[in-house]
C-alpha cells in the first residue's frame, strides 16, 4: 500500500501552547481520549482549551457535566482565562448537565442521553466531565467496559473527538478497561516538593502518532494551561551542520588562543571563582557579536538588566543601543517556583524572537538558585536538552559557572557539566610575588586546536585584557600557588 492510499489522520490543535509539539503535532481527529489526574491538576481547563480551539457553530462541542463541579461555577471560573470566548456559547459550545440522569438512571440511560444530544447537535468535540463520577455507578466491571466500548464506538461513528475527564490515582493505571479502550491518555500530575508545586504531564498513550515521551512541565496561568516540551519544540527543526565560522570575544590575545575564536554553534563554559571576570568576559563576547550585527541574548539571574548594562557601559561596552534596536535582550530571570523548562522556554522565546546568534547564561549557579527546589534535581538534564536544542540550530552559548577556588584541585564546574560543553575556559587566582593575580587557560576546544598557554590577565576599564607574555618562570600555576622555577626569569612569546 502506497503512502497515498493510507488514511490521513488530521491532527487537531490542542489550544494549549506547547502541547501540540508534545503530542506529535496535534490530537488525532475522532480519537477517544482520557484526561486523568488528581483534583486541581488542570484537567477541565485543558479540555476547555481544546474545546475553544476546535468548536464551531457548524460542528459544535458538547460539554457534558456530571456530578461534581457545578457548571455555573465552572463557567464562572473558566471565563477568567484569556482563551475563553463568550461569543462561542452556546452556538459553538454547549454545556449539558447529566447529573439527574446519572442519579436516577443507570449507564444505559446515560448513554441514551448522550446519544440523543449527539444526534441532535452533530458535534466535532464531546467532553464528559467528570467521567469518574459516572463510572462509580456500574454494578460490575463488565457493565463499565461495555458502556465505554459502546460510547467510544458511537462517538467515533459520529466523527467526534472525545475527552473523558477523570480523577485517577497512579495505581489505577494498570488493568483498567477504560484505559484499554482509549486512543489517548493524558496524565496530569501535581506534587508538592518542599514549598513548591510541581506540575507535570505525560502522554501515557497516543495511538497512531509519535508523541514526545517523558514528563513535561506545565503551568496554569491566566492564559490557561501552558506545556513545556522536554524537547523545547525544536525536534522538528533541522539541525544545522557545524559551521566553519569562528566567533570572537573581541579580545585579540584570547581570540588567538582560541585559534581565531570559538566555532559557531558551540557551547562554551567559562569557569572561575568569584571576581575572576567571568561576567566581563561574557559581556565582551556579546558586545563583539552585537557590534558585528549578530543579535544576542543575555540571561541574567544575579543582577538586574539595568545594572548589567551599566557595568558594561563602565567597560566602554554599549548594551543600551542594541537593546533599543531590538538586537539584544537582557532577560532577568528570578522566577520563584518556575521549572527549569519554563525558564528555558523564556530563553528560547527570546532567542527565536530576535534570531539570536549568541546567548550568554550568567550564571549557571544563579539559574539553578532561581528555580524552585523541586526542579533543581532536573537541572543538569534540562540544561543538556536546552544546550543540545539551541546549538543544534546554530546558536552559540556561553555559560558562566562559579567554582570553589581550591589549591589542591582544578575543578571546571561543580555541576559535572563539562561534558555538555565544547569549549572550556578556566579563570583563576594565583598567588605570585605576594600578589593575588589572575590567569586563564583554554582547557578544551572540541572543534580544533587551541593554545596551551596559561596567560595572565587583568580586568581594566576596557574589560579583560590579557597581558603580553606567557609566564614561564613559575611551575604549578594551575594550583594557584605556583613555585618559582630555578631558571632565570624570562618571558617567552605565546605558542
Amino acid at each position: 500500500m502506497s503512502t497515498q492510499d493510507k488514511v490521513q489522520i488530521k491532527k487537531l490543535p490542542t489550544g494549549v501552547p506547547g502541547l501540540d509539539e508534545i503530542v506529535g503535532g496535534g490530537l488525532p481527529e475522532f480519537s477517544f481520549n482520557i484526561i486523568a489526574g488528581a483534583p486541581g491538576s488542570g484537567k477541565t481547563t485543558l479540555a476547555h482549551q481544546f474545546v475553544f480551539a476546535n468548536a464551531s457553530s457548524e460542528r459544535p462541542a458538547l460539554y457534558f457535566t456530571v456530578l461534581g463541579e457545578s457548571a455555573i461555577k465552572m463557567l464562572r471560573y473558566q471565563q477568567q482565562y484569556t482563551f475563553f470566548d463568550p461569543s462561542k456559547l452556546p452556538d459553538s459550545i454547549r454545556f449539558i448537565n447529566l447529573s439527574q440522569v446519572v442519579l436516577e438512571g443507570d449507564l444505559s440511560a446515560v448513554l441514551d442521553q448522550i446519544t440523543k444530544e449527539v444526534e441532535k447537535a452533530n458535534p466535532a468535540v464531546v467532553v464528559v466531565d467528570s467521567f469518574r463520577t459516572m463510572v462509580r455507578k456500574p454494578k460490575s466491571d463488565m457493565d463499565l467496559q461495555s458502556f465505554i466500548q459502546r460510547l467510544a464506538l458511537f462517538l467515533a461513528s459520529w466523527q467526534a473527538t472525545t475527552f473523558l475527564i477523570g480523577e485517577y490515582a497512579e495505581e489505577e493505571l494498570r488493568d483498567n478497561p477504560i484505559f484499554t479502550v482509549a486512543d489517548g491518555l493524558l496524565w496530569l500530575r501535581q506534587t508538592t516538593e518542599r514549598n513548591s508545586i510541581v506540575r507535570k504531564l505525560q502522554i501515557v498513550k497516543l495511538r497512531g502518532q509519535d508523541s514526545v515521551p517523558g514528563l513535561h512541565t506545565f503551568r496554569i496561568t491566566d492564559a490557561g494551561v501552558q506545556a513545556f516540551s522536554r524537547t523545547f519544540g525544536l525536534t522538528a527543526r533541522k539541525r544545522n551542520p557545524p559551521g566553519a565560522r569562528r566567533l570572537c570575544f573581541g579580545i585579540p590575545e584570547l581570540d588567538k588562543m582560541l585559534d581565531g575564536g570559538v566555532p559557531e554553534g558551540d557551547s562554551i563554559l567559562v569557569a572561575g571563582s568569584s571576581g575572576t571576570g567571568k561576567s566581563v568576559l561574557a559581556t565582551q563576547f556579546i558586545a563583539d557579536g552585537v557590534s558585528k550585527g549578530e543579535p544576542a541574548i543575555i540571561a541574567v539571574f544575579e543582577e538586574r538588566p539595568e545594572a548589567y548594562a551599566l557595568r558594561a557601559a563602565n567597560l566602554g561596552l554599549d548594551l543600551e543601543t542594541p537593546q533599543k534596536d531590538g538586537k539584544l535582550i537582557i532577560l532577568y530571570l528570578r522566577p520563584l517556583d518556575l521549572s527549569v523548562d519554563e525558564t528555558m522556554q523564556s530563553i528560547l522565546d527570546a532567542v527565536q524572537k530576535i534570531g539570536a546568534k549568541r546567548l550568554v547564561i550568567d550564571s549557571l549557579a544563579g539559574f539553578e538558585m532561581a528555580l524552585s527546589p523541586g526542579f533543581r534535581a532536573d537541572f543538569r538534564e534540562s540544561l543538556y536538552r536546552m544546550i543540545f536544542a539551541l546549538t543544534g540550530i546554530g546558536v552559540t552559548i556561553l555559560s558562566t559557572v562559579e567554582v570553589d577556588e581550591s589549591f589542591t584541585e582544578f575543578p571546571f564546574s561543580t555541576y559535572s557539566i563539562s561534558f555538555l560543553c565544547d569549549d572550556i575556559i578556566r579563570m583563576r587566582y594565583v598567588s605570585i610575588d605576594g600578589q593575588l593575580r589572575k590567569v586563564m587557560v583554554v582547557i578544551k576546544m572540541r572543534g580544533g586546536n587551541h593554545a596551551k598557554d596559561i596567560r595572565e590577565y587583568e580586568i581594566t576599564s576596557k574589560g579583560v585584557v590579557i597581558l603580553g607574555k606567557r609566564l614561564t618562570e613559575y611551575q604549578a600555576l594551575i594550583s594557584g600557588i605556583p613555585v618559582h622555577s630555578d631558571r632565570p626569569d624570562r618571558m617567552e612569546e605565546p605558542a
Partner: protein
Amino acid sequence: MAASLKTRDLARCLLNYEAASATSTEPKESAALGVYEKLRQSLSAFAGEAAFESLAFRALTQAKSEAPSLWAVQVTEGGSLQNLGDVEPQSDTDQGLAAKFPAGDGGIILIARLLGLVHIFLGEALTMRLLRVTWPGAALDDCNSENGRKT
C-alpha cells in the same frame, strides 16, 4: 438590597415579550411563570436541576423581602414554581417600591432576582447570550431604562 434597576428592566422586558406572545386574557402572573419556566429549562439544561433549584430558592427568598405578595410562592423539587398565579396582590411594604412596582409585580422582582444571581455567577456577556438563545426574538438591548424604557 433591592434588585438593580437594570435587572428589573430586563425582567420587565422579558415579561412583556412573553405576555405579548401569549393570549391577552391570561393574567400577568402567567407571563412571569412563562419566563421563569423558560429560564428553568435553559439553566437546568447546562447547570443541572439541582443547581437551578438552589438559585431559584435564593432568588425567591430575596424577592419575598421586596415583594410580600410572593409569600405563598414556593420552589419545588426540580426548580418548578408553585402558587405564583394563585397569589393575591398585596401592598408592598416599601412605599417607594410599591409606587414603582405595584402589587402584582412580584413576578418581575422574582425574575429580576434570578437574573441578578445568574449575572453574578456568569457575568453579563454569558447571561445575555443565554437570554438571547432562550428568547431569540426579544430586543433585549433596548431594555435599559437609562436609554429609555420600552414597554
